[in-house]
Structures are given as C-alpha cells and as structure tokens.
C-alpha cells in the first residue's frame, strides 16, 4: 500500500538521480512528478524532463503548480544557490521535505529555511551518512563506553573520483570568506559538498556543538576546480563544547587514489581506547589476472564523475580488488529513517535546525581559511 506521493524537485545531473531511485523502491512511496522553479534554464528543464522520463512520471514546469498535487513528500535537490527559496516554498506548502546536502550556501539561506521549518510542523531531514553501518558502529562504541570518555575524533571522507594530477604546478589556493557561487558543470566546492558528511557525523556522534574552527582549503588535484576557483580539498580543526576536539578531511582526490570509493573513516580517541571505524572493513581483497579499474574516457560535461546519468554511455570499469562485507546503502537507510519519522512524529536527527548548525560550521571554515585564523561560532548575522 502506498502512503506517500513524492514530488521530485530537480532532475538528471543532480542528486535527485539517487534520491528518486531510493524513494521509488520504498514500499510506502510512489513517485508522482518531477518539477522545478519556473525560471530554470532550458538545459536544466531538459535534464528534469529526462529524469521524469526515466521514471515514467510527468514533468511539471512550475513548482507552485506541482505543490498543489496530491503529494505528501518533496525530495528537493535544486542548485545550492536556490535551495532556500525552494525549501521555504515546500515547507510553507505543508510538505514533508527530504533535502539535498548541504542545506544552503549562505547564513541568510540557512536562517530562512530554519524559520520556515519552525512554522511548518512537518518532518524535514537532510541527507547524511549517519545511518551507514560503520557510523552506527562508532555511535554504539561511544554510547556503550567501549572508547571511554571521548577526547578527540578524526573523520575523513574523500571521493575517489575525477582525474587527479591536472592542477597547474605552483597553484596555491587563496580562499575567500564568502563563497558566492557553488554550481558549475565541471566542479563543485568539495569542502562544502563532501565536508558536510564529516561535520554531520561529528555533531551526531558527539551531540556537541562546534565552538571554533581552523580551516585550510586547497587546489591539490584538479585543473577544473582551480579554473573556476573552488577548492578540491579541505581540512579543519574544531573545538567543540566540553573541551572535545576534532579534525576532519574532505575532498575529491582522484579515481585512482583509493582501491574503492575513497577513504571514509572515523577515528575515536577516548580514555579507554582508540577505535577506528571504516566503510571498507571488514572486507576481503582479491588479486588475479582480471584487468582492474581503469579511468573511463574524460566526459567534458562531467569530468568529476559526479552523476550516474553521465556514465550510462561510458560506464567505468568497476574496482574489484576490495569486496566489502554487505553494507546498508546509506541513502536507503536514511530515507527509511525519514519515513519512520513521518509516521511516528519523531524529529529526525538531522532536521533543518541540525543541518543549519553544521552547514554554518563549513561556512565558518571558509572564513577561517581566508583569514588564516581560528573563527568562532556562531557567525555574526549582519
């Protein structure tokens, strides 16, 4: 029995590709339509129509019109720059909202979403990897006392995607305090887009707030990122409340820099033990005469291999040297938790308030990286 009609905001070449796939297989959900803001570009509308066709559902060009349909859930993945506008509309329309990450690219945007959420009395959740098995194991180790009192943590998430080694020699990143643009065809802000996973895990695992950040961003690997002046790497040191400290690494460092999809790990340093939780353990390793992964031909429209839809014609050879034990798809588990929150009335762990807090940490990171100094949170509202 289907309980929830799902409206998709965004199409191909957005995270809606994976959101839609997961919602389409949830037994209580039925995809109803793809939509977007009325003033999107022709190209974006084309991509949205393509996703609608992929799933055999109608495309509606006007979000306001689509929100009047019989839908209870909106899966929202528009460009970062317009996420606040879309989220506020969906919340004001009384729809449960499943949000792409990070929440928004400005403090004003974060605050607007939180304010609308406060008034909406619906369930809203931002996607994170907190429901992955290795993160759940780390949480259990903290809660059951295996690690003792937590002293510090290190969390890293690096995507093994893109062709590394192309950044011009001598490139030294000079960060800006306020990023103005986030959406490009060929690159994305990796500390923003990947670092959010680490910060979300940090806040969720510890239940603490970040008091200060000290951050460094870099252009280490990809010419595409350097060309549009966005970072491909970020590192942060954080002081949390209660004297807890943490470090994080995030970025996109090349398809051939890791045997699988890139490091995803949590290191807990406590009074009793130092424990490491890794997305790829336990695993078996296989070596034989089968040709392993080679980089696919460069797709100029997606050089960073951000979207599954661009790999349809030239699928990369899979990496087969590591075979991890069966793991729960983090988005399937995350959507399942979202539906469960709708049904029980429980507030999601990463609701817009939590999502805004951790996204603000990343924005503070840019300020720190630009100034070369520690920055305190919360950031001042001008």
């Amino acid at each position, binding site marked *: 029995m289907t309980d929830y009609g799902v409206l998709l905001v965004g199409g191909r070449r957005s995270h809606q590709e994976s959101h839609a796939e997961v919602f389409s297989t949830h037994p209580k959900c039925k995809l109803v339509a793809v939509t977007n803001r009325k003033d999107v570009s022709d190209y974006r509308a084309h991509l949205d129509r393509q996703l609608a066709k992929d799933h055999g559902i109608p495309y509606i060009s006007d979000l306001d019109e689509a929100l009047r349909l019989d839908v209870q859930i909106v899966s929202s993945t528009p460009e970062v720059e317009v996420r606040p506008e879309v989220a506020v509309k969906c919340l004001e329309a009384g729809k449960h909202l499943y949000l792409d990450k990070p929440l928004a690219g400005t403090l004003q945007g974060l605050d607007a979403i939180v304010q609308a959420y406060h008034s909406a009395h619906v369930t809203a959740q931002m996607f994170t990897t907190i429901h992955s098995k290795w993160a759940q194991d780390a949480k259990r180790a903290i809660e059951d006392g295996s690690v003792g009192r937590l002293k*510090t943590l290190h969390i890293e998430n690096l995507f093994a995607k893109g062709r590394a080694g192309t950044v011009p020699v001598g490139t030294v990143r000079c960060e800006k305090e306020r990023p103005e643009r986030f959406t490009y065809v060929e690159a994305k802000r990796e500390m923003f887009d990947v670092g959010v996973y680490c910060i979300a895990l940090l806040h969720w695992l510890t239940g603490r707030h970040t008091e200060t950040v000290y951050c460094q961003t870099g252009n280490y690997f990809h010419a595409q990122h350097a060309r549009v002046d966005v970072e491909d790497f970020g590192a942060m040191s954080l002081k949390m409340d209660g004297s807890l400290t943490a470090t994080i690494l995030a970025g996109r460092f090349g398809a051939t820099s890791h045997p699988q999809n890139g490091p995803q790990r949590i290191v807990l340093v406590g009074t009793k033990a*130092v424990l490491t939780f890794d997305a790829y353990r336990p695993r078996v390793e296989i070596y034989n005469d089968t040709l392993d992964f080679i980089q696919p031909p460069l797709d100029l429209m997606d050089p960073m291999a951000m979207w599954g839809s661009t790999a349809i014609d030239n699928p990369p050879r899979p990496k087969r040297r590591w075979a991890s034990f069966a793991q729960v798809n983090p988005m399937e588990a995350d959507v399942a938790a979202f539906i469960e929150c709708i049904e029980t009335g429980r507030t999601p762990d990463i609701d817009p308030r939590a999502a805004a807090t951790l996204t603000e940490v990343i924005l503070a990171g840019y300020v720190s990286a630009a100034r070369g100094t520690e920055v305190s949170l919360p950031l001042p509202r001008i």
Partner: protein
Amino acid sequence: MNQGTHELKSNHLRLLSHVVQETINQGAIGTPRYLRCIITLSSEDGLEAVLLELTRLAGAWFGSGACSSYRLGCDESTHITEMQKWSEGQGAILTATHSPTAIGPRLDLMLIGSRGTLYHEE
C-alpha cells in the same frame, strides 16, 4: 620514557621515512600535498617528542618546514593535534595520543599527493 618502546618507534619511523621518500622520489603519488598521521602510544611515551618526529617527517616529505601550526590539546590532556601549513599550500594534521590499551606504537598514516595517495597502518 620507555627506551625499548622509543627505539621500536624510532626505528619504525626511520624505515617508514625511507620507504615513503623512495615512493615520492619515484613520482608515484605526484607532488605530496597533505599528510594525515595519527600515532597512538602507550602511556610511558612523550607526546611532544613523537609530534616533533612526525613534524620532521612531514618537513622532509614536503621539502621544507611548515610556516604555521595550530594546536589542539596538550601533553597534559593525553593527546596533541597540530594542523600545520606550508607556504606552497601543503598541509598536515598530526595527532599523537596516549591509549591505555596500546601495547606498542600504532601508526595510521595517509600521504595525499597530486596524483596518488600512500596509506600506511601499523
């Protein structure tokens, strides 16, 4: 300081340094850009001394010393983390920590280069 543990640790770091330098010299990871190293020690060892050794290694692999460092924790808090920056944009996160269950030193290292990455866990 426990001399046996210190000698094991120093010898291991010396051998590691050699292998990593060879890897860098061969161009296998391109230009070293970021180092993440977490070393866990038994309680008898001095964190500052170990951090100094890690700093020296980072300097050797990056070809120069760091131009700035930012510290979390201190020796009395049983863990130290330094985030170090280099003038040409490289960086490092170096953590030295005590653990009561550590029988000997345990090293978890990732050296990220412009076109490849080196991993070491011991």
